[in-house]
């Protein structure tokens, strides 16, 4: 029996998280013969290949993989290689740092059948098993209430026909390839719907600040998205900023500059940025202190992001900060 839905995963040097994803896929309520899993990876070392060869899903014939040259392929290249190797008419994309609950795939297939021909974006939440790590000052996570314009590939279902028609993801860029594909699909009149029941969990990964700042360099390609799809600007604050925190940051900096002259005005100017940028840990004085202590880190992150985007804006000749 041909599989009805393919799970497509792009992986890069995360064999442990990939293992946990495969365990979660092996535990799905959807019958094994109704789905296939295809992983494309450009990981270095033998661990990922070994895992993909000996995992129970591979032994059962459910899992296949595509090995690409080790390195830093853009994620779109890995995803394209994987979905092209899949056979099912429906393709569910997820990431190697996600852990879908048992009903995820059954819900994804049902949603795709409810909306034939449409792109279906599912919900993504920080893994409840990793909630304690949200207290780490800098961490990587995803929290998506669908539908969003960004069409993140950690949880999205495409008809294979749409992928073929649009020739898959743009392999040139490091970020925004998912949003660009969805924007192109919408421009071709393809429906785009959100299905909160198609829920998956994303890892919460604490990251040291210097490494996090270095990782932001890849966002230089984001202005390319608004250059190619100007209609996407309406999803950005004031059509110019990536995030509201970026819009408020110049005001906060102005407030800091005026601090010696007028403390009230400087506080007033800093407040919108502080409110949107500093993470909320709950009520109480202790939490407030903890929140305020994040200000230097958040400032470093927002400033770095804006600098990276400014460089990207010049490179792609499309302003986005």
């Amino acid at each position, binding site marked *: 029996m041909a599989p009805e839905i393919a799970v497509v995963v792009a992986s890069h040097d995360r*064999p*442990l998280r990939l*293992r*946990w994803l495969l*365990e979660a896929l092996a535990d799905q309520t959807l019958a094994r013969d109704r789905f296939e899993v295809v992983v494309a990876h450009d990981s270095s070392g033998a*661990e990922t290949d*070994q*895992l993909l060869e000996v995992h129970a899903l591979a032994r059962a014939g459910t899992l296949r993989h595509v090995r690409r040259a080790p390195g830093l392929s853009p994620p779109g290249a890995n995803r394209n290689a994987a979905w092209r190797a899949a056979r099912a008419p429906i393709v569910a994309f997820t990431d190697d740092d996600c*852990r879908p609950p048992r009903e995820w795939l059954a819900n994804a297939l049902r949603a795709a059948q409810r909306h034939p021909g449409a792109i279906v974006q599912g919900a993504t939440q920080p*893994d409840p*098993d*990793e909630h*304690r*790590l949200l*207290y*780490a000052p800098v961490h990587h996570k995803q929290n998506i209430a669908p539908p969003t314009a960004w069409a993140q590939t950690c949880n999205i279902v495409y008809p294979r026909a749409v992928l073929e028609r649009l020739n898959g993801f743009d392999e040139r860029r490091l970020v925004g390839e998912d949003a660009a594909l969805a924007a192109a699909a919408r421009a071709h009149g393809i429906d785009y719907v959100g299905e909160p029941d198609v829920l998956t969990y994303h*890892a*919460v990964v*604490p990251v040291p600040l210097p490494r996090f700042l270095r990782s932001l360099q890849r966002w230089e390609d984001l202005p390319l998205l608004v250059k190619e799809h100007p209609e996407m600007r309406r999803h950005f604050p004031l059509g110019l900023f990536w995030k509201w925190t970026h819009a408020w940051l110049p005001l906060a900096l102005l407030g800091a500059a005026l601090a010696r002259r007028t403390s009230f005005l400087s506080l007033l100017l800093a407040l919108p940025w502080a409110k949107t940028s500093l993470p909320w840990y709950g009520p109480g004085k202790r939490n407030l202190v903890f929140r305020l202590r994040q200000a230097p880190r958040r400032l470093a992150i927002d400033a770095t992001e804006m600098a990276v985007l400014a460089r990207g804006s010049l490179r792609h000749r499309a302003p986005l900060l």
Partner: protein
Amino acid sequence: MTRVALLTPTYWPEVRRGTERFAHEVGVGLTERGDDVTIVTSHKSRPATATEDGMRVIRNWRPPDGRLRRRMFEDYLTHLPFAYLSLRRGDYDVANALFPSDGVAAARWSRETGKPAVLSYMGIPDRRGLVDRRWRIRITQDAIAGARAVVALSKAAQDAFARWLGVQARQIYPPVDVETFTPGGQRAPEPTIICAGELGEPRKRVPLLIEAFARVRRERPTARLLLDRPRDAAVAARVVGDAPGVDLVDIDDRIALRDAYRRTWVSALPSFGEAFGLVLAEAMGCGTPVVCAREGGMPEIVDSEAVGRIFDEAEPPAVARALLEALELAEDPATPAACRARAEHFSRARCVDQYQSLYQEIGAAG
């Protein structure tokens, strides 16, 4: 003679849990065979070195780690530089860590000296546990990568290593002191159940046992349940309250624990996530049948209905049924011998044999 360093973040008398007992039993067992054993551990006081039970015990200073714990970092990190220095200063053939963070120190020592490190993992690794603390995944992976052998306490733990970490661990059951935990004395006249699990530790599910025990009392009104008295009286008040028939006893000391097992009819451990269940095997050494959940490594101990009962659902009726059946089992004259025979399967001698073979295999035997 092999010079063995056993690394554990805490040791007697500061902490008396399974890991500390493991360190003691393996250490004593190896020492009795002529090996030179040093326990490298830590405590909150000044550094100290002593000879205890024929072993050298180095207690390094463990700086306060409250801030790190509050920030969700992995436990037991602050003593690591001292543990590493102790290894470098000593002359060991093998460093056997009993906790992943110590495993990182052992791995570094191994890298720099070329001598082998072993990681004996005291729990069952699983995804949820590995992501519970910052740095835990990395520390565990580094400790595993730097160890020439990884040891799991049970087949369940061995399977979990393969499933969650992709690691082929060896399996060696932990040592049970069947020389101390022997049958003897008289059983209490009334049906008595003991649980040596830590009262305040949610994983031990003592409240479930207390609920089930209330059902047992409906059929056996004179039944008693003995629980390990916690250091914090508030914990006892919160967990036990005024449940009828439930008493707190002091069983911190091994002889007191042995005497308690001898007096009681059944030993129960309703925990989940136990890699082995040492207290079950110790109770069986005293001829006492046991009750446990069908989880983790415990069903490997209770391999037949002649030595205890296993409950499948963590619900009071299922636990109560298992307890009542085990109380009946305790009245069968054949039960103490069956329990004792099963406990001997996990003897210290058998465990030490396997560790000596392992050390020899990885090139550590002196």
